[in-house]
């Protein structure tokens, strides 16, 4: 009986954790692009360029420039592949209360250049160097005249941690007809940017594949129900070993519309197929040892965002 109470408590805590993790992500934001600060005068980019996500450049425009336009974005070098970018333009806004005249306040305005990548052409991908060509124009009575050209170099760096994601959830092992709780580590072959919206049509099919498919390994510490003659036992002290293949956000993609809350509920979800390694007492009662067993299982897991589950304490962890 206490064992059942423990299991129920674990289920309750898991459900609470999932709910908290999901709610902590809040209402899906409108496509707010990450801001990357650039210095046009020194032709430098402060920080890294985000990959697989929209972003915008911000900075202080040179005084002589009234309009900024991104001419092109090129991969790796001046001869590299040109990323398709729709015209991204910023124009200085003058204070109309001042009769449209230029004032010091207007000159201090910051520019924002939102990079519009064309659908299906893809965003910058991880671990590449990109060249951004920006032209500056001055407004005259005759129209715009080009007064400056800037070329900036930015990189989309990623680390090992971007390849690894934690999650937890419930699985069903087919042959023992057992429901198990599990926590797993997923290894992606491509870095994952948390800001990437997997519903984004800008991502190419191959990026979708790489951003969604993972190999995982982990532990199944609890068995909630089983239909076996011999009890399922943990392989190790902490749980049974599991491994397999995961598919991230299967119900959230440009091809599978899920509505407004799709990103909140379906993007952190994974559907996995794998192997549960456990032990069972030998079917021959004369033999005392346990026998190693394997069973195929399917699971649904959610991203394990430790910071959101810990609530206020999570901020300290971060």
């Amino acid at each position: 009986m206490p064992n059942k109470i423990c299991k129920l408590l674990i289920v309750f805590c898991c459900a609470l954790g999932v709910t908290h993790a999901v709610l902590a992500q809040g209402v899906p934001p409108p496509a707010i692009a990450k801001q990357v600060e650039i210095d046009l005068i020194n032709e430098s980019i402060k920080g890294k360029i985000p990959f697989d996500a929209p972003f915008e450049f911000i900075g202080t425009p040179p005084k002589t420039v009234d309009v900024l336009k991104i001419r092109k974005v090129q991969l790796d070098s001046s001869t590299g592949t040109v990323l398709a970018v729709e015209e991204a333009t910023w124009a200085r806004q003058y204070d109309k209360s001042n009769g449209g005249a230029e004032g010091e306040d207007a000159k201090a305005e910051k520019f924002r250049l939102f990079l519009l990548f064309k659908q299906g052409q893809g965003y910058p991908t991880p671990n590449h160097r990109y060249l951004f060509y920006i032209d500056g124009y001055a407004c005259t009575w005759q129209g715009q005249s080009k007064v400056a050209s800037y070329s900036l170099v930015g990189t989309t760096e990623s680390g090992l941690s971007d390849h690894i994601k934690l999650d937890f959830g419930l699985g069903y092992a087919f042959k023992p007809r057992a429901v198990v709780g599990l926590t797993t580590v997923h290894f992606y072959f491509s870095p994952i940017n948390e800001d990437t919206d997997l519903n984004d049509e800008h991502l190419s099919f191959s990026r979708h594949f790489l951003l969604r498919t993972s190999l995982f390994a982990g532990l199944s510490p609890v068995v909630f129900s089983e239909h076996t003659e011999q009890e399922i036992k943990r392989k190790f002290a902490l749980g049974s070993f599991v491994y397999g293949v995961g598919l991230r956000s299967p119900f959230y993609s440009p091809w599978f519309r899920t509505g407004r809350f799709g990103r909140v509920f379906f993007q952190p979800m994974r559907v996995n197929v794998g192997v549960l390694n456990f032990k069972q007492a030998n079917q021959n009662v004369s033999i005392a040892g346990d026998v190693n067993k394997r069973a195929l299982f399917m699971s649904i897991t959610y991203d394990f965002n430790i910071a959101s589950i810990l609530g206020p304490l999570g901020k300290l962890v971060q």
Partner: protein
Amino acid sequence: MKRIIFLASALAAVWVLGGCSPLEDPALVAPEEILLLSVTGKKQLVANGQDKTVLLARVPKEAGQVIITFTTSAGSFPFNNTKIIKQFADSIQGDYRYARTLLRSDTTKGTVYLTAETPQASRRQTVLFIP
């Protein structure tokens, strides 16, 4: 493209390494695979208190140390009716371990019930004590 091929290979490897094992089910185990008692000598003993036969108990090799207790409804065990099967250096033969004991008749006539018992199982055999 290379990454996709590598990933596809890894997925195939997981698939190959995966698969199921049959589950353990005590109902599938034949009783003689747990404990077998057999009379390897004569099945009929003269009820004169002198005639003897050999009883053999068998357990799986993986059973490890097992205490086997032999009992009889008549006659006696001239040596010992309790055998710790691991004590026999030659107890492993093939996939099994064996324990032997000697049964000596007495003057009782008729069917005699013999039992071999381990903590997990018990088996019965009969021999006949004849005049």
